[in-house]
């Protein structure tokens, strides 16, 4: 890292305070264009809250968030989506009364003027169909296009979370525990999907499963009590005593 590439995402002194709780307190964090980054840390470390400040769900109490050189600290979530920030949700956040394909349509059209077509035909265009079917194929949902989301299994809903993220072409893609609660076979699918993403998409992955996360990324941020505890390569993280203390140690105790 002698000549660091231009950062896509740059956080400076970002603090998110909930009453007395300082959920996020990140002095500096920088993610380069095209980088694959994992954010790990025990439950309650502030990982999801960090994502919420990056995507605009929460406005940080103080600090500055820059995306591609622009200050986005106070921008609304849909504006940040327009700049190319996309995410998946740790707690499944889909459109439960709609079909899989309607969920995909909404994911595809979020940044397209067609979303304002008030009396036009709602059918998929050929281009939309090919993107949607590709994403559904990758997430093994090709046969489930007309299923209503609330009737689907938890695993299928998690797969749809991913398919929706894949169908837009974001510059920064934030995955919040995409494999949480999935079977080993389903986790392999998730890993495959993350690996198959085009290299120009920058990826930040929150993941509890160390083995899964460390195999997918270039660099790892370990958070603890809102702060960045260690930032290092996957190999160094594996052997880092502090990380093992707060993270692996605890995980082992739980297991």
């Amino acid at each position: 890292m002698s000549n660091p590439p231009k950062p896509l995402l740059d956080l400076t002194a970002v603090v998110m305070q909930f009453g007395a709780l300082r959920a996020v307190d990140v002095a500096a964090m920088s993610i380069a264009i095209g980088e694959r980054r994992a954010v790990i840390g025990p439950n309650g470390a502030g990982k999801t809250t960090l994502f919420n400040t990056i995507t605009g769900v929460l406005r940080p109490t103080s600090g500055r968030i820059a995306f591609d050189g622009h200050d986005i600290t106070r921008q609304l979530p849909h504006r940040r989506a327009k700049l190319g920030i996309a995410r998946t949700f740790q707690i499944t956040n889909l459109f439960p009364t709609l079909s899989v394909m309607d969920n995909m349509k909404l994911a595809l059209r979020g940044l397209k003027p067609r979303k304002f077509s008030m009396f036009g035909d709602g059918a998929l265009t050929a281009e939309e169909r090919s993107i949607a079917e590709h994403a559904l194929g990758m997430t093994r949902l090709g046969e489930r296009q007309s299923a209503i989301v609330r009737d689907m299994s938890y695993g299928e809903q998690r797969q749809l979370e991913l398919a929706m993220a894949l169908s837009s072409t974001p510059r920064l893609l934030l995955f919040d525990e995409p494999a949480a609660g999935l079977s080993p076979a389903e986790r392999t699918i998730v890993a495959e999907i993350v690996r198959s993403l085009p290299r120009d998409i920058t990826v930040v992955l929150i993941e509890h499963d160390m083995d899964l996360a460390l195999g997918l990324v270039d660099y790892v941020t370990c958070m603890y009590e809102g702060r960045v505890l260690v930032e290092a390569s996957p190999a160094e993280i594996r052997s880092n005593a502090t990380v093992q203390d707060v993270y692996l140690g605890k995980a082992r105790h739980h297991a």
Partner: protein
Amino acid sequence: MTDGERRHPAWVSWASSVGVLAVLATLPFVLKSYHLGIATQILIFAILAMSIDVLAGFSGRTPLCHGAIFGTATYFVIYSVNIWDLPLPAALLVGVAAATVLSAVFAILAVRVSGVYFLLLTLALGLVVWGVCLRWSQVTGGENGLRGDLRRGALADIKVFYAIAAATSLFAYIAMRRFVNSPFGLTLRGIRDSESRMASLGYNVTLHVFLAFVVSGFFAGLAGSIYAVFNNYVSPSAVALPQSVQGLLMAIVGGIGTLVGSYVGAALIIMLELFVSAFTERWQIVLGSVFVAIMLFAPEGIVGKINQLTRRHSQSKNTNP
């Protein structure tokens, strides 16, 4: 096949469209004037109920101000014929325009809240309109209201007016159905299901709800304008809270999020009111009981319940090998 909305095969919708048109076309020849007037009223109030359904059923925002929007159109139509001497078609346009502008103002104020806050805020906005109509008596005639003379010439014939109301109602239904099935309509159902997901996908939720509110207000105004011609009279009760509640009840009883349910709800409530009020002055108690029964046994409304049953039926057929 991938369209999750389409529940029936194409021939069913064709057959039912033809059937409905045939019934609508036959009514003037079989009903007495009085009953044709009731049918006309049902067709008009169904437009109001559908305009409410666009927000309550498809956007997840239940309004209690649509009576005020509806009645504002009624006031404007009668006023502009009486005082400005406008020809009726122009007066109808003024009524729709006034209602649309009013709904845009309401929308700006109410669009940022949802749930019970939306309900209460729109209720309060409706009350303001009612207060103005009641107090500004130089213009609105206060409690006495305004009497119009709108049913001149051919319009005096209820058959002619029925035909106009039916055509307007049909137009409103087709337009609103197209609206809710459009790409924009899908964004409203997305907002109903998850606003945070919509925002993260790049949708400006506030803007979409604002636009839906204005479209909904346009159709409520259309209903109110036609009603002005039907009723030839307007008083503060046209913009009062019970009007908003009744429109909402029609949509709910028929089936929220179904559009056609509004016709069933309007027919049920209007006929029930006429029938029961012949026997007792306390017809609202009966209406209340019917409403409670429907909420208990078919909370998705009559059409909603029918859709649910037919879907379950076709699913059990499909799962058979």
